[in-house]
């Protein structure tokens, strides 16, 4: 079994004249939870989409499970799970239909996929909507459905892009526990989010992306040492060169007060 699950070398990507990634490189070892953070538009989702083969046309090298993904072989996707940032699902289908379909795409037997999906939904507290159309789900239910759909096939590498969006506090706790246990069993998790407290607590390593480059890379303690700041939020502000929040806030409020 490979020990380095994921390796990115000098990754660059641009949309027309606008460059999104300007040479990103890092490697990820088995069993780690990587917190992948950065301001809006820093290129987090783009990196994830490249690794999943949703976006192509990049330069640089992306190796997953020791293989270059640009060679056209898609077998590596069988061992990957993904929760997208924007909850796009075929919402005319029922939860049962959608999850069974996704399971089958990953090569699971349809009755196995269906049973597994059912018990996962029950465990996550949304068993009663298993046979309802996804269009009728609340935001939190949809998010849970997406999380389940990413785990059905017991993947080794997980990409979570804002996975706890819309979940209530109890569900977030369950989810954090799920992640910790998965990592303990050797799964690798790539977690990107804007909620700094969660990233700070669960990540074994944090990578901060800013303007398409890596601005910081290390454990939370290492980042703290380098930056002499207390919380990840403050480190984030410092590294992204943002210090005007007080002033902007004050100007915003004064604009609100104008009549």
């Amino acid at each position, binding site marked *: 079994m490979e020990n380095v699950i994921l390796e990115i070398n000098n990754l660059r990507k641009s949309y027309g004249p606008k460059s999104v990634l300007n040479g990103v490189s890092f490697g990820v070892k088995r069993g780690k939870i990587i917190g992948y953070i950065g301001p809006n538009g820093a290129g987090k989702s783009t990196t994830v989409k490249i690794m*999943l*083969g*949703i976006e192509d*046309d990049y330069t640089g090298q992306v190796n997953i499970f020791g293989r270059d993904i640009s060679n056209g072989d*898609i*077998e*590596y*996707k*069988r061992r*990957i799970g*993904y929760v*997208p940032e*924007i909850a*796009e*699902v*075929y919402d*005319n*289908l029922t939860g049962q*239909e959608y999850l069974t*379909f*996704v399971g*089958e*795409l*990953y*090569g699971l037997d349809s009755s196995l996929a269906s049973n597994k999906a059912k018990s996962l939904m029950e465990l996550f507290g949304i068993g009663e909507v298993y046979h309802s159309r996804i269009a009728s789900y609340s935001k939190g239910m949809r998010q849970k459905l997406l999380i389940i759909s990413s785990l059905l096939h017991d993947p080794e590498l997980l990409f979570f892009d804002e996975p706890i969006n819309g979940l209530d506090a109890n569900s977030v706790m369950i989810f954090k526990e799920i992640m910790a246990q998965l990592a303990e069993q050797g799964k690798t998790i790539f977690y990107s989010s804007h909620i700094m407290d969660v990233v700070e607590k669960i990540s074994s390593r944090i990578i901060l992306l800013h303007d398409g480059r890596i601005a910081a890379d290390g454990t939370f303690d290492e980042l703290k040492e380098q930056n002499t700041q207390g919380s990840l939020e403050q480190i984030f502000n410092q590294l992204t060169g943002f210090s005007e929040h007080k002033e902007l806030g004050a100007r915003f409020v004064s604009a609100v007060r104008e009549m």
Partner: protein
Amino acid sequence: MQDSRTLKLLDPFERVFKSFGIDYKIMRKILQVKLTMDGRRVPTIFSQNAKKENKEKNNQYIKSLWIYVLFSLFLIPFVLMGDNYLFQMSLYYGIFTFFVMTSMISDFSSVLLDVRDRNILFPKPVSRKTISTAKMVHVTIYLSFLTIALTGIPLIVGLFKNGLLFFLLAVINIILINLLVVGLTALIYLSILRFFDGEKLKDLINYVQIGLSLMIMVGYQLLIRSFEFIDLTVSFLPSWWQIFIFPMWYGANMEMVLNGSFEPVYLLFSALSLLIPILSIWIYMKFTGTFEQSLQKLTYHGKAKEMKRSKAGQLLLNIICRSPEERAFFRFAGSMMKNERDFKLKAYPSLGFSIVIPFILIINTLREDFAQLSDSKSYLSIYFSLIIIPSIMILLKYSGKYKGAFIYRVAPLKSLKPLFSGTIKAFIFKLYLPVYFILSALFLFIYGSGILPDLIAVFISACLYAVICFIVLKKALPFSESFDDYNQNGNTAIIIGLMLFVALLAGLHFISTFLPYGIYLYLGICSICLVTSWSLAFNVTWEKISKG
């Protein structure tokens, strides 16, 4: 999810797909999911009168095909007419192309332009080839259904009348036309997406859908009458521009083979008929990667131009609406009617229809004598434009994003009067008035300026009628209910009842024209009624608004 029969038809070709390196099992799964989802969608041509039902056994699309079968009956005469194949079959193919193209754009767009595929299927271990083949097969399945519905009966009639050769040739031609249409549609989308953003494309699709619905409404009226016009003494004079009318290419094929007239123009047409479809499909295949890339644009929302409020418009608005709240609702309702695609799809065809209907009626009377027309009182047929008012007033309470209606309850509204009066005014000025102006301009042209007071009276009556409709119809907050609850049949009785009011108004108007200065009397009475009813009608309390 059930296994559809269509997919079973596909199974014998498993090997063929596999030999192209396609994962057949997965492709079948994808198609199964897609067909299930389609079964829950209501196609455009049907959405006029279908309410979504929760039964799922039958695909709604398949059910909607009977309309096309009906239309195909109108195509039979073209097959039977005679042996001027170039003329009659060109017409036949032309009409066929029109239906396939519009239906392609309105109903298959969602297949071609589904961006969810990218985000849902691409991360899964499914090859791109399998995904794009699934897409192709998906379109092909529906296109075949549509084609069989549209051409089945006429071609069988043709088989008996004109023989086997005719039949085979027609089948080949139709397949080529389908290829051309698919290639062309995809290429049109491709070029639009390259230069514009997704919103533009969605607007375009919306307008095509509106056009299709209108065409079908008008088509019912015209097709039946058109039988009388068909005359077979048409001779063909080749001119250069006919090269661009591609149904003629296929007509030429028929002419050549069946009548044995191998003129050079026909040979050229025939060559084009074969080359262009293959070429367009080839280009599409070549650029399918670019197409997928550009599809990503559908999710971006381009920077829209800022709309400046014009001074004149502002001034006019101040005259129309007195209170600032009413102005706010006027503007809000106006932009909702302008922007909401679901609303436009349901409302605009009937607006177009109401422009056409008075003329169809005039044409009917016109048969007798044209000179008489301008003296007659047939201009009163403009009252038919009023019949759209109740159905659109009913539509006003629906919205695709009806949940946004919470804003009414959150906002500190003292009374609901400005809400309703602003919305009704927006409807009259933004939707009805354009229709009225077009009709008035045309009528003034036909009947002369003498009917000006009558036209003004019609507008006042229309406003009065809108208020009457408001009073009679169930009160509900505008844009506050889901289109899923929209059921036209449930309202038919009320709408017919309300139409009697139109008859009443038109009747009174008609009587008034016999009195000296009667039209001014009618105008005065209408205005008084309007002013009184307007001040009383909108005093609706929150309690009166029916829920659900």
